[in-house]
């Protein structure tokens, strides 16, 4: 009896251990994020006040608050497992945000709670990095050209708008995630969340201008479930 209990406990611990990380060959949630309606027209950024950045572009790049692709694809949407998956320890490699041409690359950077975040300045001008955190601590640091990367981490999940006060057109988003099951929709609006152990999940899609949506999905074995999100575009 006692051995059986111990055995069951062992199984439970093993199961818990496998739950704490992605399972190669597990189930997959994939799909597309699209919009309906008319999204706000993205205006060309006037970088004339920062010639060292302006000259890097043949034509002024557009703002990135809503980035769309063919067939109503919506880019830069963070799709992630918001419930059903356990919290995970951060990976050892750093997430990198580059400031280049007075823009944030990538525009949306997702990384895990307590994962190292590195911010580099590849421009010939000073930036100040000002992530406007509300749940985590808000800080604001100057980074002149040629200075080493700024290193930081966040200890709570949050979507944090990032801005540079010197160059008011610079906007980006940090997505601080609790686990490794996240994906950012590409130019075709597509996303993939692989390696999911069997279970019930809540999938959330977050867009910096259009807010968030959730859907429930059940995964059994190594199946691929299709989940699509449609956001209502606002014309302003």
């Amino acid at each position: 009896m006692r051995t059986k209990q111990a055995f069951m406990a062992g199984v439970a611990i093993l199961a818990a251990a496998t739950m704490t990380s992605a399972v190669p060959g597990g189930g997959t949630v994939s799909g597309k994020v699209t919009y309906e309606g008319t999204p706000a027209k993205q205006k060309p950024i006037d970088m004339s006040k920062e010639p060292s950045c302006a000259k890097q572009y043949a034509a002024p790049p557009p703002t990135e608050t809503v980035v769309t692709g063919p067939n109503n694809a919506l880019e830069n949407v963070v799709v992630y497992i918001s419930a059903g998956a356990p919290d995970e320890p951060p990976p050892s490699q750093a997430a990198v945000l580059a400031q280049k041409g007075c823009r944030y690359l990538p525009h949306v950077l997702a990384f895990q709670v307590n994962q190292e975040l590195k911010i580099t300045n590849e421009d010939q001008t000073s930036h100040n990095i000002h992530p406007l955190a509300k749940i985590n601590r808000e800080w604001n640091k100057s980074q002149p050209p040629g200075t080493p990367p700024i290193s930081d981490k966040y200890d709570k999940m949050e979507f944090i708008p990032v801005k540079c006060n010197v160059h008011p057109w610079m906007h980006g988003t940090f997505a601080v995630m609790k686990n490794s099951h996240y994906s950012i929709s590409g130019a075709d609006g597509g996303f993939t969340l692989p390696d999911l152990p069997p279970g019930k999940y809540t999938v959330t899609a977050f867009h910096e201008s259009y807010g968030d949506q959730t859907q429930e999905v059940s995964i059994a074995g190594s199946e691929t479930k299709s989940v699509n999100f449609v956001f209502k575009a606002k014309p302003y």
Partner: protein
Amino acid sequence: MRANKSMQWMFLAAALLALPSLGIAQQGEVHVGKVTGHSDAGKQLYYRFCWGCHGFHGDGNGENGPYLNILPRNFVAATFKCRSTPTGTLPTDEDLYDSVGRGFNNSNMPAWNSLTKQQRADMVAFIKTFSPRWKTDKPGDPIHVPAESAVTLDSIKHGKELFTKLECWKCHGQEGRGDGPSAPTLTDSNDQPIRPYNFAAGSRFKCGATNHDLYKIFMTGLDGTPMPSFADVIKPEDAWDLVHYLRTLQVTTKSPELALWMTSKEGAEIVKAQKITGTPTGAGIKQ
């Protein structure tokens, strides 16, 4: 021998009982110098003097809040401008105490130096009950401010170079008049317009008036505003040079730095060429 042993026990028990008063702050207490502030007493003061602007719940949504140009501090968010601690960290009790007594120049926050030290410390203790951050986070370690270097022309000139190199002028303007190219676009973390400091028209800063205060302002940054921290990019010895130069931008305020700068041909020409317009917050300045 036996008596000795029991005495030892008594000492130990007494020491244990005394522990909380030996540097370990009790909940709802703050220590500023020799003064211990109590949140219970601070509560009475808060709901007499502070809540009209800072709000019943300390969230900055008091009755007068919407009418103020610079919104009252939201104590629930616990983001504070004037700190001796690094950007992104909570201020020390002394920082909050100093802010209450000093007030915020060019804002509607008066200097509460009409209240006693005890009352101000009590207020600080109560203000700290609004945000759970005070339970989960510790205040940052105050930044080290080395002894001030001598005020020399070389120091001022080096400070001027730093002002250009670090692009302080992007917001504060070439002459520190709050009219840099980015100035009209600045907003604080509440999305309210905010103007960079106009050195030419002001003597006091938001967080004090001394060289020491000025050093802390740019090294820690003013959290919740566009003013970033330069702690990672300015060496302490260079920082004093920048302080000395910034003083010369305050052309309407007498200072040893300005007096020395005026003795040089370069400085005298620069200062003479300046026309003083507007207020320290930047109002009335042509952008």
